[in-house]
């Protein structure tokens, strides 16, 4: 194909270079460039330019024309860079004077086209493409292009500025890598290992960074910091240490000056620097300050998230980031009075909410890593979160008398959601189980409150599942579930909002899974009437809710398998099976039907045989296989897979007879599978219009074939004919033909 395209290339070049022709849109130019890239990568040393002289003419005509379209020029610059990436290509282009023509400093300025951001971006991208060998770097240095790149770092277009930064980093990287490969010194060599003319280049760039950091102009400082963080994270030695040494002083000045808008970028720089190094620790220390500056909270939140961070700094940051939470929700401490800035921030609604959210999410982050708190007990932290959640629902006053934060917080969904997430995360600390009464109390309040937003309820459920899982060994948990939780859940399943009904059902499913095997829970599920509520939810008007109800019922049935087959259990199974079969055959929406098949699969996977399901299996396979929703078909194939596994490996439904030979056993198993209609399903699915369905069916058939092949004493032809009345290949073919005809 490439050769066909190449033959068209001269004509394409002519069209592109023709200023009278309207330029093609950016996308096609990008695609063309991609094609060149691919060609270039496959060229194996062959030089495209030699074979395609039209490219040289094209570049020359575009770069010298004064009426070129900016998009074409930008494309040409990128292309030129790409072509110059090999030494031979570079040589050819330089020989023709085309490189200078395209990238020369003066050439850039004289032309009005430079005003167009796409041209500047193309110019930078071209240089970036070219920078694969020393000669290209020489070219850049020799022609003073570094200065232009440094200027473009301040470009009004964000894309251009970011590209300029990338190019500068690339140049610095290239300087070090070329010198270490060429030079005799090993890695870690000092600046002397750089070629003398390159030393000036690196110092030019680094001086620019230092200058930017020392500037009074805020945007310039910001740009300097961005480049600095890029260099620190992407460049190797000795550039890193050289630059770090130079920027330390201006960085210190910046941090001391303290500006909230720089915090994030400064933190990125510190993160990129080796955080374990002594100066970084000091800088972090300085940024955190004494906890009495506006920006220290944001900084602390970022420090908490740092992966590698000096322990001292992390402890300090943790102390600071917890302050807002403690300030609002614990007893007043005299020392808190000294945090004037914090008091002021907490008295304003917007900053109060944002500070508390930072505090809570940092706490969740710490809990996620199971951070060991030293100065403060995890009990008191957890109690603070509980207190804050109570405050958000209007039940508690804020403790610090001077700040009436509760006015801002009552009914504030953001803080509620964040607080509930954090409360859930705090379940990892075992010592917190002592607080379970308070925790379940506040969670129950949220579940009961008529004003709880649907998303808040969802978070409450998530937190509740985590805590219930942790507290499952405690006997009082069951009391809480059956006396307090179930009545609320029952009401929530009748909620006006389908989202709430849905998340309630999801929660019940998770709860049943988490307490799987807990006989008390299963008993409560039945005696409290929850099961009948679940069954009635199968008829909800909303498809998603029906799907969740199916999952919940499925899980409730699974839970009942663990206990003696009572009349109650079999009646539940019977009711569930009937309603789920109705859903599979009649539900107008895909989600409930998918859920039904998934539930059956999970029943089948379980260690307890579900005899009642066996009689319905062939209907399930046939209904599921003929469903018009491809996901239902996929789930049905998954069910078929489990069925195959169960039937072929242990045949739970057959009384094992030791006298049976392997052959008889397999034949019987296959014959059972045939009775279920499994082969019909597989053969039909093989020709399905949805590719994943075909692939899955194919994989299952292949597995079947392998299995039969492995059984050495099996007479294949007999078995196959016996099972299907036809050979597989013929079977597939005949079905295919039938389908074609239909």
């Amino acid at each position, binding site marked *: 194909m490439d050769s066909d395209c190449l033959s068209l290339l001269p004509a394409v070049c002519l069209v592109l270079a023709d200023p009278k022709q309207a330029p093609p849109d950016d996308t096609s130019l990008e695609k063309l460039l991609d094609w060149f890239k691919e060609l270039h990568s496959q060229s194996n040393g062959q030089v495209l330019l030699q074979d395609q002289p039209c490219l040289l003419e094209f570049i020359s005509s575009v770069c010298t024309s004064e009426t070129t379209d900016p998009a074409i020029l930008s494309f040409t610059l990128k292309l030129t860079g790409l072509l110059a990436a090999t030494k031979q290509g570079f040589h050819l282009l330089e020989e023709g004077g085309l490189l200078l023509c395209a990238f020369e400093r003066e050439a850039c300025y004289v032309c009005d086209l430079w005003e167009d951001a796409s041209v500047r971006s193309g110019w930078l991208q071209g240089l970036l493409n070219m920078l694969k060998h020393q000669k290209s770097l020489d070219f850049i240095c020799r022609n003073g292009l570094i200065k232009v790149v440094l200027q473009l770092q301040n470009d009004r277009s964000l894309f251009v500025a970011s590209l300029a930064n990338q190019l500068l980093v690339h140049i610095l990287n290239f300087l070090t890598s070329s010198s270490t490969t060429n030079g005799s010194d090993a890695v870690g060599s000092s600046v002397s290992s750089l070629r003398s003319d390159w030393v000036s280049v690196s110092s030019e760039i680094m001086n620019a960074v230092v200058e930017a950091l020392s500037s009074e102009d805020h945007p310039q400082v910001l740009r300097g910091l961005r480049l600095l963080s890029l260099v620190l994270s992407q460049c190797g030695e000795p550039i890193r240490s050289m630059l770090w040494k130079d920027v330390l002083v201006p960085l210190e000045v910046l941090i001391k000056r303290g500006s909230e808008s720089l915090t994030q970028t400064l933190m990125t720089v510190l993160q990129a620097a080796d955080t374990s190094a002594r100066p970084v620790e000091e800088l972090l220390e300085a940024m955190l300050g004494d906890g009495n500056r506006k920006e220290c909270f944001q900084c602390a939140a970022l420090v908490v998230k740092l992966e590698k961070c000096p322990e001292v700094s992390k402890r300090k940051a943790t102390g600071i980031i917890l302050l807002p939470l403690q300030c609002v929700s614990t007893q007043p401490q005299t020392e808190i009075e000294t945090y004037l800035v914090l008091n002021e921030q907490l008295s304003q609604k917007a900053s109060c909410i944002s500070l508390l959210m930072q505090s809570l999410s940092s706490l969740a982050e710490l809990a996620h890593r199971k951070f060991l708190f030293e100065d403060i007990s995890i009990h008191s932290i957890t109690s603070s979160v509980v207190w804050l959640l109570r405050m958000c629902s*209007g039940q*508690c*006053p804020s403790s610090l008398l001077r700040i*009436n934060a*509760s*006015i801002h917080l*009552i009914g504030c969904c953001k803080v509620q959601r964040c607080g509930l997430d954090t409360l859930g995360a705090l379940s990892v600390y075992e010592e917190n189980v002592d607080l379970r009464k308070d925790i379940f109390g506040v969670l129950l309040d949220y579940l009961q*409150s*008529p*004003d*709880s937003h649907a998303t808040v309820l969802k978070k409450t459920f998530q937190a509740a599942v985590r805590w219930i899982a942790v507290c499952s060994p405690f006997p009082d948990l069951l009391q809480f579930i059956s006396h307090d939780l179930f009545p609320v859940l*029952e*009401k*929530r399943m*009748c*909620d*006006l*909002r*389908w989202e709430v009904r849905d998340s309630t059902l999801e929660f019940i499913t998770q709860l049943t899974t988490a307490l799987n095997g807990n006989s008390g829970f299963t008993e409560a599920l039945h005696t409290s*009437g929850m099961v009948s*509520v679940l069954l*009635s939810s199968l*008829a*909800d*008007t*909303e498809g998603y809710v029906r799907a969740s109800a199916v999952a919940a019922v499925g899980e409730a049935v699974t839970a009942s398998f663990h206990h003696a087959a009572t009349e109650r259990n079999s009646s539940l199974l019977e009711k569930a099976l009937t309603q789920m079969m109705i859903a599979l055959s009649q539900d107008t929406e895909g989600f409930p039907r998918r859920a039904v098949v998934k539930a059956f699969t999970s029943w089948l996977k379980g260690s307890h045989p579900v005899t009642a399901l066996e009689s319905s299996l062939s209907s399930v396979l046939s209904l599921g296989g003929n469903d018009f929703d491809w996901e239902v078909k996929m789930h049905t194939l998954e069910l078929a897979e489990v069925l195959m596994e169960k039937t072929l490996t242990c045949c739970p439904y057959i009384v094992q007879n030791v006298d049976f030979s392997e052959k008889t056993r397999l034949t019987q198993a296959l014959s059972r599978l045939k009775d279920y209609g499994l082969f019909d399903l597989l053969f039909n699915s093989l020709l399905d219009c949805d590719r994943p369905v075909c692939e899955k069916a194919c994989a299952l058939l292949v597995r079947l074939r392998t299995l039969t092949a492995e059984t050495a004493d099996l007479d294949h032809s007999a078995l196959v004919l016996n099972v299907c009345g036809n050979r597989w290949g013929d079977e597939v073919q005949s079905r295919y033909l039938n389908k074609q005809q239909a």
Partner: protein
Amino acid sequence: MRVCSELNDTHGPTAEEKTSVPNVSRVVASQKTRKHMKLYCLSGHPTLPCNVLKFKSTTIMLDCGLDTTAALYFLPLPLVHSPRLSKLPGWVSKDGAVNLEKELKECSGRVFVDSQPEFCLPEKELLDLSTIDVILISNYHCMMALPYITEHTGFTGTVYATEPTLQIGRLLMEELVTFMERVPKAQAATCWKNKEIQRLLPGPLKDAVDVWSWRKCYSVQEVNSALSKVQLVGYSQKELFGAVQVTPLSSGYSLGSSNWIIQSHYEKVSYVSGSSLLTTHPQPMEQSSLKNSDVLILTGLTQIPTANPDGMLGEFCSNLAMTIRAGGNVLVPCYSSGVIYDLLECLYQFMDSANLGSTPFYFISPVANSSLEFSQIFAEWLCQNKQSKVYLPEPPFPHAELIQTNKLKHYPSIHGDFSSEFRQPCVVFTGHPSLRFGDVVHFMELWGKSSLNTIIFTEPDFSYLDALAPYQPLAMKCVYCPIDTRLNFHQVSKLLKDIQPLHVVCPEPYTQPPPAQPHRSDLMLELQPPPMAYRRCSVLGLPFRRRYERIHLLPELARSLVPSEIKAGVSVATVSAVLQSKDNKHVLQPVPKPAPVPPSKKRKRVTEEPPEVLNPKPLLSGAVPLEPFLAMLHKNGITEVKVEETADGHILHLQTEDVLIQLEEDATHIICDNNEPLRTALRDLVLRFLQKL
């Protein structure tokens, strides 16, 4: 042409030895009375207000709400003979000293009055109710005491209300009367009210206040007579006695509900009663006209500030669905108009989605039919969304469809058709929310024993625990979902920030957090300046003075004026005229020329004689500058002047002449004994610095 006259004693910068007062001042002086506006608070109930505003020469009653919570002290009135209630033991004090077996019955550990329920009326002794000129009604819940006020008090004024307020108010009153008259009680209990006896009664009867002012319900005749005094108003201005204008504004709370603006030319009082910013069925609240009020009287905020109506509606629906699914019945004690329309609309959408489509709803009230029908015909008073439905072939409220499809059935009472068509499980909406009278009493007796049934309280007016007290022990589930759509504190503080009244007057409970939640400082009004709080029987002098009055000049008088410019853009003229005040309108007329006295008439009619006309002296304006004045004195040979600075200006002591000249901001006095020529000379020197009119 109009001029303003100040009612205050304000001085212009004129300075002259006070020898005469020009006529114009004299005319204005007759109007110089410092007038305070007064507010008499006849009810302390924040949502059932009854206040009287004395403004200019009018006496305006703002709402007359009836506090029916007193009914909770009484035994329920069963529609069908109740063996339980009829067999209750009478109450005798422990020592047997007080025996009120006939009047008080013990029921479920509490003592109730066995008599027709009574209500607590607005205070009648605070001012003479016969002096009330008009009563402004803001919504149908706030007019239930009207017959008590307009009948038997000598009231001769007019009542202003919108049409839906009148019609639905009439329904509610008729319903109340029917509830009472259907179950007549032979005698009224009064002995227990005796102070000495009441002291000995168990709580909460012991603590009931003002029991002697409680009255039993009015009659249909009184309702008709009271409502015949109502004059209908639309949302447009009405003038009262030429003195003030009253304007109802849509308040968004119920059909035809309104806030009122009472204003004169220079003063504006806004009266905000039950208002709502939620999108329910009524026309939305008009807010901008409330701007620039001198005083805003704020009543009728939500009674349950912690219950958000949306959440409560959700709670209502889920509890209802839960009960029906479990095979139980739902009882909703409610008023026959108002939130019930929204409840029905919400259920209309919910029942199908909750798979409860076949459950019947029953609405039982003597006025059920009229209430459902009226709501459909007041199209112009509905929200935009419902108004637009008038042009479609569908009624504004979906309850019409519920009726058509037989899902909602309404009956005047449990007797008659209802008993034969009644099917369970069902949802019954019926009154009265106090559970003391009305058909609801029957359902409480019928369904109270089964835990499958649920009673859902949606009206916020009564404590549900008190309402349920005579039905204990109760097996049925109780759910409290008070739906109060009136403004909450958050909304009202936003509103006040927006409309910026100079002063706010409100019931006392709004100035502190709810007693049950002392930490909720967000549930109170925090304003600068702090609001003026009132309670029952307060008389408030409203904190602003009327300063100006509008006076009209007749054209011929205006023509005779000679304005002279005292500074750029300000011209002043003196007026000599006769001020005529009639019907609160003030007109300056030319002074009639004295008619030649006919010699034949012997008798002189003193009263009709026009006032004597004097030639007015010119008015002066300006200030006497100290330094130039001293220079002027020096020029005129007065050299020895001692100047002393005072709080108001300067005192000049002419030592040789022994004369004192007091130069003050608004007056100049020359004190000089027995030297008229010198006084005149000095006066002329002063006059040189002043402008004459």
